[in-house]
């Protein structure tokens, strides 16, 4: 090929490839409605959606909305708030939003009863879990942090806890002294995720992972220490009466069928598989003392928490459910 002909081929290729890239991007831009400004808070007064008896969730468009728990097929009431993960309790809410940018960052936004922003904590990574304690005092969250490119491997989770009464925030709890199988444990690779607080706002449960294994841990916030209770239990969620946990248990190596929801009775330490046969990758929420809800396949489902019954769809096109009490 002569240099001139080569140049012509290159220019033609640039035109075709550039046209294809620009054309597809333009088509994609028109196809998707422009999403809300992430983390944009609603006007005061729209907080009325946060009524007891409501089921709050994140819509497929990324907005927080609510329906009456007694009639989940009713038209949702929007709050105007854009979140990737949402949780609420005792009138205080936490909203995790991924911030757009060349590198991944997340903001944890704390909101009062009328959904007005009261605190904003800037974090690295991508939203994963958010939880507010029943009283509205302890907020916790988990983000995925990719310190390096994916081709190098190595994801880690950073789990944070905010005491909204004192304002004290820990952005990564992995320095908490840990007792594993009865012995004080030190390791570089500990990762925590999925925190759930008890009614006393001091005792909490979470997952810790190290050396390829996961453990259920019980933590004491005031004493700042944690100990493992058993192996293979992730994303615990404590029942309102504080006696049982629903968690996801790893049951398969097949990544598409990895977890099954289980109930753990904290007094007898007996576990029971729930009636949901599909793999669920979520931290469930308790709707009442007998039922849990979770996201699966782009919808929110519910299932009895004792292993009986069958899963039932609650809200289509939704995730991050939470019942307002």
């Amino acid at each position, binding site marked *: 090929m002569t240099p001139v002909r080569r140049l012509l081929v*290159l220019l033609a290729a640039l035109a075709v490839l550039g046209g294809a890239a620009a054309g597809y*991007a333009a088509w*994609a831009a028109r196809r998707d409605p422009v999403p809300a400004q992430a983390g944009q808070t609603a006007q005061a007064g729209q907080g009325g959606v946060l009524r007891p008896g409501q089921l709050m969730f994140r819509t497929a468009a990324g907005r927080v909305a609510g329906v009456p728990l007694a009639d989940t097929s009713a038209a949702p009431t929007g709050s105007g708030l854009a979140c990737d993960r949402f949780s609420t309790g005792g009138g205080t809410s936490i909203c995790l939003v991924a911030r*757009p940018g060349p590198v*991944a960052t997340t903001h944890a936004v704390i909101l009062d009863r009328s959904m007005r922003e009261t605190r904003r904590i800037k974090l*690295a*990574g991508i939203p994963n879990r958010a939880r507010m304690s029943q009283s509205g005092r302890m907020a916790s969250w988990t983000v995925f942090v990719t310190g390096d490119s*994916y081709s190098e491997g*190595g994801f880690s989770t950073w789990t944070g806890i905010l005491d909204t009464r004192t304002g004290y925030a820990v952005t990564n709890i992995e320095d908490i002294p840990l007792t594993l199988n009865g012995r004080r444990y030190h390791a570089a690779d500990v990762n925590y995720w999925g925190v759930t607080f008890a009614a006393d706002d001091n005792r909490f449960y979470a997952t810790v992972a190290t050396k390829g294994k996961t453990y259920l841990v019980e933590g004491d916030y005031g004493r700042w220490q944690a100990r493992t209770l058993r192996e293979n239990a992730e994303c615990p969620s404590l029942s309102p009466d504080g006696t049982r946990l629903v968690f996801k248990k790893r049951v398969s190596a097949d990544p598409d069928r990895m977890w099954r929801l289980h109930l753990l009775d904290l007094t007898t330490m007996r576990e029971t598989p729930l009636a949901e046969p599909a793999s669920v990758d979520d931290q469930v929420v308790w709707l009442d003392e007998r039922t849990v809800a979770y996201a699966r396949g782009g919808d929110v489902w519910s299932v009895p928490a004792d292993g009986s019954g069958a899963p039932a769809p609650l809200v289509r096109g939704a995730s991050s459910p939470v019942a307002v009490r």
Partner: protein
Amino acid sequence: MYISASRAADGARPRSRLSWAVPGNVLALGTVSLVTDISSEMVTAVLPLYLTLSLGLNLLQFGLLDGLSFGVTALVRLAGGNLADRWQRRKLVAGVGYGLSALCKPALLAAGGSVAALGAVIAVDRTGKGLRTAPRDALISLSVPPDGLGQAFGVHRAMDTFGALLGPLVAFAVLMGTGGAYDAVFVVSFCVAVLGVLLMVMYVRDQRMPLPGPRSATSPRAAFGLLREAAFRRVCVVAAALGLVTLSDAFVYLLLQKRGGFGAEYFPLLPIGTAAVYLLLAVPVGRLADRVGRIPVFLAGHVALIAAYLVLIGPGWLVAVLALQGVFYAATDGVLMAVAGPMLPAHLRTSGLALLQTGQATARLFSSVLFGAVWTMWGSTQGLAAMAAGLAVCVLGAWSVVRRHA
């Protein structure tokens, strides 16, 4: 945009006995790497977001696949390097590597929400990267007179790093312009990758060496036989030993974060600091290596790394650690290829470089295991001190060996 050999010399008068000119083939390979890195880093920047927020998957599931794909990549790298020599078709093998990675971009979309399929695509992408590195570096080393290799590799690595820095910015621009359409990022990335392959096909000249004697001269046995050459074996042993006491970047950033002193949201910016210093220093340090000797510069790069670990143990100055890391990469990554290239017979150049790179990568994998164990037993400061001491021993040992055989 015809790339001429004199282009780099425009407006720059030679300041030393070495010329500033870089052969056209190196600039062509540098451009291919720049364009390909824009493409691949676009995907790297948005993939975790896409997997978690768009598909609702758990990133930890992908971590489980890491160890598995490393072994496959290492084998493919060695086999590909040897085939490139047997056929004397380095451009073809490198081109297949670039092509594989390009095809992975639409495949990511086609994989949908299946973790197994996505994991497979990511593994193929890495295989493509493993396949192309050794033939590409062999092409660079065969396109440049031996006295200018340091500079040539410096130019290539600077262009490569520049592409890696641009990628996330392009991805962000596409996401902003389309209102968050991840598929548009993958499609644009695919178009950019195809341009890279095309540039490779049209502008990179293959370097085909006449085979000396029978075909067995390029057999796998002959490739491993390179290790019987004392000089090359020494380089491999030194590189692997140093790799064993080199902390992975992820650990360095994690330790910086533990030291605190900066907001959690700035954590993802740390690799950019290192890359920027690497970009700025790759060419001058490569030229320096040509002038004062490549092995001294390579070892000095590891001294910079020792300094980085000492700063991390001591005052924990963020900027100093990132800058020293950048100096380390500038003084070692391309320079090591410039050290090894001239030691290898031209017809086995790819096999030899693949052997060296695989040995180094394997050693670094073990270093993470080693450091993790030391951290668990004694703590992170002791782990760092052990790595720094190990580096010092290896650098001194390597220096004395080199002095004896110089």
